């Protein structure tokens, strides 16, 4: 109608009228949407090559109007390295989960950061292997019920959750490392700001950027999507704390 202005539009980088493949309320959708919004805003869609990973995060080519390269489980940063080293002017990012980037592929994540590869990694941390049905991963919380820890993860049996972002931040090649969450609208805005910053790091060629995003997995957390919102704030965040752990531009907080 007249006199109204459009303040939000579904990003063009998302394939039109195509839904996501995720469970209702899954955090992946929110992050994929934020990434698409930023790619539109930076105007880099035609210059971007995305690298998918293995897990719920695998289906990039089903919803993105982007060139996508696949990778073996945990090796997305290596495929991204091969691409970025071959085509340094392209915008290259990997989209991974806590299973891919922090469990099987943690060695690759760390070394990619140490080498300061000029790529960006977005790591969705929902403290579980979602695609395979909710098994415990490296970031699973102590006490968390999963299909492999049905009576709750016991530290004396399976150890403690890995603090991913803090560890990656210790790599000198990393230019920007943050952990955000996308449970509440406030957090979503902060998450977008962090991912924008990470993208800027790459566009300016300042080094490796890594954003870990705490996201809901209603199906495997056995909660409704709305219940996940408080669970993230009251429980997950206590272990996987939010914050900017490295920012070579300066210590400015998000």
């Amino acid at each position: 109608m007249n006199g109204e202005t459009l303040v939000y539009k579904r990003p063009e980088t998302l394939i039109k009228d195509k839904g996501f493949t995720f469970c209702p309320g899954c955090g992946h959708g929110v992050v994929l949407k934020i990434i698409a919004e930023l790619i539109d805003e930076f105007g880099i869609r035609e210059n971007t090559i995305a690298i998918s990973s293995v897990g719920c995060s695998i289906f990039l080519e089903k919803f993105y109007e982007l060139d996508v390269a696949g990778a073996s489980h945990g090796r997305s940063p290596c495929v991204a390295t091969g691409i970025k080293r071959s085509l340094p002017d392209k915008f290259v990012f990997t989209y991974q989960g806590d299973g891919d980037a922090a469990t099987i592929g943690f060695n690759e994540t760390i070394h990619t950061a140490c080498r300061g590869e000029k790529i960006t990694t977005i790591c969705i941390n929902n403290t579980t292997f979602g695609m395979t049905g909710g098994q415990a991963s490296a970031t699973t919380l102590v006490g968390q019920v999963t299909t492999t820890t049905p009576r709750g993860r016991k530290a004396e049996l399976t150890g403690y959750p890995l603090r991913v972002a803090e560890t990656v931040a210790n790599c000198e090649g990393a230019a920007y490392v943050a952990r955000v969450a996308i449970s509440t609208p406030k957090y979503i805005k902060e998450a977008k700001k962090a991912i924008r910053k990470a993208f800027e790091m790459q566009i300016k060629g300042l080094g490796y950027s890594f954003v870990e995003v705490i996201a809901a997995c209603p199906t495997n957390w056995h909660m409704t999507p709305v219940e996940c919102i408080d669970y993230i704030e009251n429980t997950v965040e206590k272990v996987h704390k939010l914050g900017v752990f490295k920012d070579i531009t300066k210590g400015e907080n998000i």
Partner: protein
Amino acid sequence: MTKVLWKGNQAIAQAAINAGCQCYFGYPITPQSEIGEYMGDKMPELGRTFITAESELASISMVIGAGTTGTKAMTSSSSCGIALMQEAISAMCCAEVPGVIVSVMRGGPGLGNIASAQGDYFQAVRGGGNGDYKIIVYSPATIQEAIDLMYRAFHVSMKYRNPVMLLADGILGQMMEPVEFGKYPYIDEDVSKWALSGAKGRAPRNLVSLHMPDGELEKISDKIFEKYKIISEKEMIVDKFMTDDAELIVTAFGTTARIAKSAVKKARKAGMKVGLFRPVMLSPFPEKELYETAKSTQMILDIELNQGQMLLDVKASVFGACPVEFLGRSGGGMLTDTQMLEKITTLYKKIGVKV
């Protein structure tokens, strides 16, 4: 061109550079570490990419990354390292991504030893990865041939969008020989129709290896096996030595074939009609060529530095046309031409006696 003395590993590396290899991703492992060292020295000077990756799992996936953009890339490793690459190699075949892999075999199984061996034949040609796929495998017997086959590997890999392996061994990697580096003889392929470069002025593309929808993977599987048939017909290389009138033909590959050649020459001097059939392309295997050769001879003796691996392909190809015998040593053990000649002589006597 005058010949120059070169070490195998370094010659393989220089050949890759001449072939236009833009990216080298590797990891140290005896007996091929000099390839990485040589590349570490030369590639940055040429403004090309060199990375010692954190593992062979990483290095082969970096090759995939470069390959998806149509960039010439390679990795090199040995036995155990090549084993770590199998999952990714399978994915390369599914997504049809080019890349060159140099495997310099050492003693196995396990950490084995660093002696020369051929126990990774199955690993190379049968593929240690999952699913139905084939990689193209070339096996040089001399350093000169290794150079020529490296040129061919980069060309064929890009032309057919498939991983190509140069299967050498510890001897070839470590020894020195006079060689000459000719110019890279192939024209670069046009990759613009499939390579990833960013969806500018065209629809987005993807090179992935997960294909869930019904029948999608089957279509891909049939397509790549059609491709392997074409490769087998168009790119096959076999080296036959004195096989036309041979009563007994030795089959062997790599440096073992070279030693077998001198055994064949000695046998000929001793009046025995012996020949050598050496597959240079191991995968796809020269089934037809070997069958045709086997039809006109009395016996085949397969000689390998393993417990009998190419032996199975030889038997399958010969298909009963004549008996197939085997002489092998494993665990890094070497066979001399004299030992080969002894086996040839005892077997040759059996041919004379019509049973």
